[in-house]
């Protein structure tokens, strides 16, 4: 037994030694990390960007990188949201008679020092047309031709007047003929031109933006340096004196948001370019070194109905559901007050186009009042129950066995939502809508479904009763109302997912695209919103804030705009804290 005791002692000792050594090594390693370069802005990315090839990297994370490189002719003012010149020198000159826009270009250089000229604009247009670039081509279709009278002038000839020309065409990023010319020529000879263009590996994207790519270590980081030829440096554009004032950007890729937020609290990164769940706020608020930003989002989260089949082909039933849905609850509980309830299908932050006078369904009423109103509406429409939700003496009870006006029993209603890991808010909203529907006797079931299957069911096959979805990045131009509700788009994979058919609406929707006068267009857009909120193909639910956080000890001067502080303006004006004090 003596040996075993000795062994035990020795073993424990060895173990202790090992642990101490390990801690010592770790402490040594963490202490010997070099002090950071003061001009280096550290940014956390939630996921690996898809690609640095502009034509493939259309996901949110690739855009964060590529938008520092490829620049459009015009972009939106961060505060007023007006479209202002960027690569262009001034606002375009519109010739009403000939339907032409004439654009003058600034003296801009590509990041390799060569000139950006009207040739490059022509080339970009040629690429969009040759490859039928998704997203762009359908918008650029209205261009009859482009001319370049001289190196700094471009003339766009349109086929017909268009209200969305400025917002959808002029904001497309420009590419250089030097970088893409030979690639495009080669790709066009292939059997699948677009695919081979997208598969082309771009190591050093050539752009005109404030930063250029320096190094990309897959799975770890992306390092970008200041572009010495950036046209905006020292210029005042959109009320901001542009820099960039930092030497380089370091994008670090994090796999999970909790780790990224810990890194932010620790000061490893200066900004986390991703959405922060409300749960983290309690901790973040307590830290002096963290500043929080809450910005409105150009987004639409809604409950969509299938108008093609019973039971939701009945407008009154949809309205009854709208009455029992408690947007206040969604806002306070699910969004934890970080958001706004959605009144119309255009977010209230989009002041100009948003119509505040659309029909409201029992907003601010109590649960009992809601149920009574919905019950009254349905009863008048001929629906019947074995046990109605409101008893004869006016009490709210658990209803049973609702019947359609035709006398048939109602089949189960399935509310499809994205899964909780994709978006916990929408999944939980689904559960709540289910409960609210049951209060008036609808046999509702909320079913989370993998996002792609959900889209296929709703958008492709049209086999559903109701669904909860959201558009996270709505364009500020309200032309999307036409896409969503024009009866022409009610086809497999078309955008009119609800199957909304209203000839009056179609007429207005098509008319507004040609109204260049914004005031006239506004009247039409307001009317369209009223129709949607009356007919309810979509019931708008909520609009969450973009919650972002920065580490404030090293950099300052972030630019807030719709959709948050992660934008090119911030990158151009953020300054090291020391230089601000000087």
């Amino acid at each position, binding site marked *: 037994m003596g040996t075993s005791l000795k062994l035990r002692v020795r073993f424990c000792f060895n173990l202790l030694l090992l642990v101490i050594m390990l801690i010592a090594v770790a402490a040594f390693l963490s202490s010997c990390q070099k002090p950071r370069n003061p001009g280096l802005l550290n940014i956390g990315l939630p996921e690996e960007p898809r690609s640095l090839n502009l034509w493939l990297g259309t996901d949110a994370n690739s855009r964060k990188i590529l938008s520092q490189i490829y620049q459009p002719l015009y972009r939106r003012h961060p505060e007023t949201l007006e479209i202002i010149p960027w690569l262009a020198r001034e606002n375009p000159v519109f010739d009403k008679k000939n339907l032409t826009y004439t654009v003058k270009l600034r003296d801009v250089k590509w990041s390799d020092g060569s000139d950006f000229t009207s040739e490059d604009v022509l080339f970009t247009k040629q690429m969009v047309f040759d490859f039928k670039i998704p997203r762009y081509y359908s918008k650029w279709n209205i261009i009859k031709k482009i001319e370049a009278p001289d190196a700094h002038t471009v003339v766009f000839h349109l086929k017909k007047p268009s209200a969305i020309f400025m917002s959808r065409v002029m904001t497309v990023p420009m590419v250089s003929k030097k970088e893409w010319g030979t690639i495009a020529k080669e790709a066009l000879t292939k059997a699948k031109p677009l695919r081979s263009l997208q598969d082309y590996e771009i190591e050093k994207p050539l752009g005109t933006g404030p930063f250029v790519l320096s190094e990309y270590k897959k799975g770890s980081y992306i390092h970008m340096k200041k572009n010495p030829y950036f046209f905006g440096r020292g210029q005042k554009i959109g009320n901001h004196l542009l820099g960039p004032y930092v030497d380089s950007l370091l994008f670090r890729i994090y796999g*999970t948001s909790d780790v990224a937020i810990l890194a932010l609290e620790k000061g490893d990164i200066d900004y986390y370019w991703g959405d922060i769940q409300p749960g983290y*706020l*309690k901790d973040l608020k307590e830290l002096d070194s963290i500043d929080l930003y809450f910005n409105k989002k150009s987004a639409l989260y809604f409950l969509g109905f299938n108008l093609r089949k019973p039971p939701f082909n009945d407008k009154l039933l949809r309205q009854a559901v709208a009455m029992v849905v408690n947007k206040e609850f969604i806002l306070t509980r699910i969004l934890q007050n970080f958001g706004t309830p959605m009144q119309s299908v255009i977010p209230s932050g989009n002041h100009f186009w948003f119509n505040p006078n659309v029909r409201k369904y029992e907003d601010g009423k109590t649960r009992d009042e809601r149920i009574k109103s919905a019950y009254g509406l349905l009863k008048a429409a001929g629906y019947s129950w074995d046990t109605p939700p409101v008893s004869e003496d006016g009490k709210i009870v658990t209803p049973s066995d609702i019947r359609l006006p035709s006398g048939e029993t109602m089949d189960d209603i399935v509310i499809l939502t994205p899964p909780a*890991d994709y978006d916990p808010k929408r999944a939980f909203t689904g*559960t709540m809508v289910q*409960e609210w529907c049951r209060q008036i006797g609808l046999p509702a079931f909320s*079913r989370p479904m993998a996002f792609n299957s959900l889209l296929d069911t709703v958008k492709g096959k049209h086999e559903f009763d109701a669904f909860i979805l959201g558009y996270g990045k709505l364009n500020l131009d309200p032309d999307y109302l036409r896409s969503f509700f024009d009866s022409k788009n009610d086809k497999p994979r078309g955008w009119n997912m609800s199957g909304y058919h209203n000839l009056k609406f179609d007429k207005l929707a098509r008319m507004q695209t040609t109204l260049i006068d914004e005031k006239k267009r506004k009247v039409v857009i307001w009317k369209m919103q009223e129709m949607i909120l009356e007919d309810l193909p979509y019931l708008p639910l909520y609009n969450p804030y973009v919650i972002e956080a920065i580490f404030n000890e090293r950099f300052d001067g972030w630019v807030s705009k719709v959709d948050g502080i992660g934008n090119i303006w911030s990158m151009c004006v953020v300054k090291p804290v020391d230089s601000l004090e000087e």
Partner: protein
Amino acid sequence: MPIWIRGLPIDVRGRTKGVFMLKNHYVQRFLQSWKIFIENPLGKTGVIILFVFMVMALASFVVPHINPMYDPMIGIDPNISISTGPSLTHWLGTDNVGRDLFAQLLEGAKVAFIVGLSSAFFSIVLGMVIGMISGYAGGTLDTFLMRTADIIMVLPSLVILLILSSLFGQFNIWIIVFIIAIMRWPAVSRVIRSQTLSLKHRPFIEASKVAGASHLRIIFRHIMPNVLPLAFLYMTFRVTSAILVEAALSFLGFGDPSQVSWGMMLQWVWKSGNMFHAPYWLLPPGISISLLTLAFYLLGRAMDEVLDPRLRKEGRA
């Protein structure tokens, strides 16, 4: 060569004799075994932990009736809209929408039992039937079944479940149970097969063959009772792996969203961003998963020793 159960070895040498004797004096034998079993420190610990969780699982049926706000899925405390720590009304605190965490923990215990036991049961039944058929029939069928078992045995089950659930959309809990069972039968069937092989040529099997018993009758009447105790032993190990896989799947967000489970609780605390400042929410489900799986594992180890007299004797010496 030891037989592997999810990366863990079970020594099966010298088991045959002990098992075979169990057929006679069943009740007496059982009581005797139970005594040995409960005297075993591993077994005792396992039984105690299991008992606690069993009480929790049963309590999950009662709690929502005390107050509707204790419903684990849809019950919401009207006064609370953020995650709060333990209090008198909420023993473990609430989650970010005001649901009671203790109620969720109880519900999770129930679900863990359902998932663990049922998928273990399915996989044992499957493994036993295939093992017996394979061992009894021999030849090509045997080779085919055992090769299939080989393939399935080497595949990482979690990865497969992930691929399947992303392809086929969110699964409900029973489909998850079923898939885990399908991924988990091969190891059992190998053991049962070798057991069957050794039984096949015993005199009493030969005798019933001569007497004209059908193959099915021989398999289910004569072989099955003899391999049943062994199958039961394996069931306890299967429970462990099923609970862990379901929890991992739920944690990654591919679980059944309409069902509260421990993995789901962890997913919620993770996804809602409360991970690092709500220990009252993060710790209980994780510890529960470990404890419950540990309990089943201890039970299995103890049973193993009961069924193998040789091990027992040495353990006492």
